[in-house]
């Protein structure tokens, strides 16, 4: 699971959970691989992200890449910055671990890079 995907997920759909965002990450295995850099895509995706959530999620798994707490102005022109964001969003993969609902503590296992968000029949 990539941090881009993590940024888009919430456990709000569960009974008794109000916000469910962001999910906590417990990373057992991390994998870093090289992915083609597309500055246009990264510039386009940044305004859609919850920036603070990305920064804290990256820090929580030790892959912060010195991302600033606040988004840089005119980041579209800053290739070096876009490359760091690219690395955090697309090149870091949580292969095994867990996503954890911040309110209920429900754990969602990640195996082989694939999070399992299936609830049990008594939770729906």
């Amino acid at each position, binding site marked *: *699971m*990539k941090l*881009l*995907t993590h940024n*888009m*997920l*919430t*456990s*709000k*759909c569960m009974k008794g959970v109000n916000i469910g*965002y962001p999910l906590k990450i417990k990373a057992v295995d991390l994998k870093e691989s090289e*992915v*083609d850099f*597309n500055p*246009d*895509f990264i510039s*386009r*995706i940044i305004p*859609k992200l919850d920036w603070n959530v990305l920064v804290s999620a990256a820090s929580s798994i030790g892959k912060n890449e010195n991302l600033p707490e606040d988004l840089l102005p005119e980041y579209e022109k800053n290739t070096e910055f876009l490359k760091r964001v690219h690395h955090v969003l*697309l090149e870091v993969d949580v292969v095994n671990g867990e996503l954890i609902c911040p309110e209920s503590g429900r754990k969602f296992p990640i*195996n*082989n*890079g*694939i*999070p*399992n*968000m*299936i*609830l*049990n*029949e*008594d939770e*729906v």
Partner: protein
Amino acid sequence: MNTKKYLLYFAQEHLNFRFEEINSLLSLLKIEMDFIETPNKTQPYWLVKFKSEDDVKLLTNRSVSLRSCMELWAYSDTIEDLHRQMKQYPYELQAPYMQENQSFKIEVETFCKHFTQKEKVDKLEAFSYLPVKGKVKLKNPEIIFQYIEYYGTDPKSPPENPYMVFFGCWITNGLRQLIQNLSLKTRKFIGNTSMDPQLSLLMANQAQVQSGDIILDPFVGSGSLLVAAAQFGGYVLGTDIDYLMLHARTRPSRITQKERDKDESVKANMAQYNLDHKYLDVLVNDFAIQFWKDDLRFDAIITDPPYGIREATEKIGTSKENCTVSEEHLPTHIPAKIEYGLSHLYYDLLTFSAKHLKLGGKLVCWFPIFRDDYNEDGLPTNTCLKLVANSEQILNKHTSRRLLTYEKIGEPCGDIREHRNNIIDFRSKYYDTREETRKERRMKKAMERHRNRKETTNHKK
């Protein structure tokens, strides 16, 4: 002003998707196209005009239905007239293609009638008056002239003489080769209902996928629709309720394969086609319970939901009241599933798309129908989604599926309750009609046996 005429030459396959695909691409690429004459639904060529030659290249290079396009120099309903026109074709228009340093070849193509190589060479030599100066080169020449004879679309009884003949200069090809490159036969990871590459690419074109788009398939399976979407530059996400499928632990779909390879996955498929940089993630997820955050917007949603025949329509749930899973069973518990009726599933799919598509974004999905019952009013609807394309693929005598393209035209407001069309339960009807024909077949065989027996006893007498 571009006065040139062009011939768009289509592959004679999936005719119902042709108009829809070209329309979608014209709107995606912001190109205008005018018909010189209105084509009928089955003919493989369109005679058209474009504002510029770049437009016809852009369109053809993105089309799956198109084999190729050519700049049309002459066309006629008789061969003699075509040659007459060609002999009068102004030299200054031909000259740029007939320089001394330009290698060339002439291709002869006959549609719907077979000719021997010798006959084709004779047809080619009829053009010996062309003022070509360059050398003939059969492999990768700089200029390709094309001569096409069109004998209609009925291969059983082609006419003596062609209905139409065309001569012109080849410009570029469509994406037919890509269909071969993405063939399911050589794909790493496939499932029982993997979509063939041609239809997958057509779906991506209906969805108007562009470079840098985020695309979701909420019933992703082995990811065949995502392969096509990524091919056109989309970054892809998928979800599926089937854990074993996403982890490639289901029984292999190839008859020759005893067990699945360890490294089969949607991601491996993307890597096979050098599209791994377009792969975001797949999640195991029940479509009826969404984990995407409210403000997330996809550029397009492309999907083939289960129809309840070859893939089950299921969601998590139980008919038991007050059911709880005990602590000790939790680690190995497999959630119970209940039927997810097609009415519910499509209602949810359109509601989800109305919420999670960007404005102007497309939902492209298949919808199974009984051909006798079909009525456009029976298709799923949503006030925020406008049906912009609808083409049929016939599956058998009774059933077909329709490829529906919806465009998001407004943001959903909380207080409108969406109308839910009651969709005929495809699954139960499917098995009902099958049961009937099976029964009929049984009866017919029994009658036959009975008759045969009677005849033999009569003979004995």
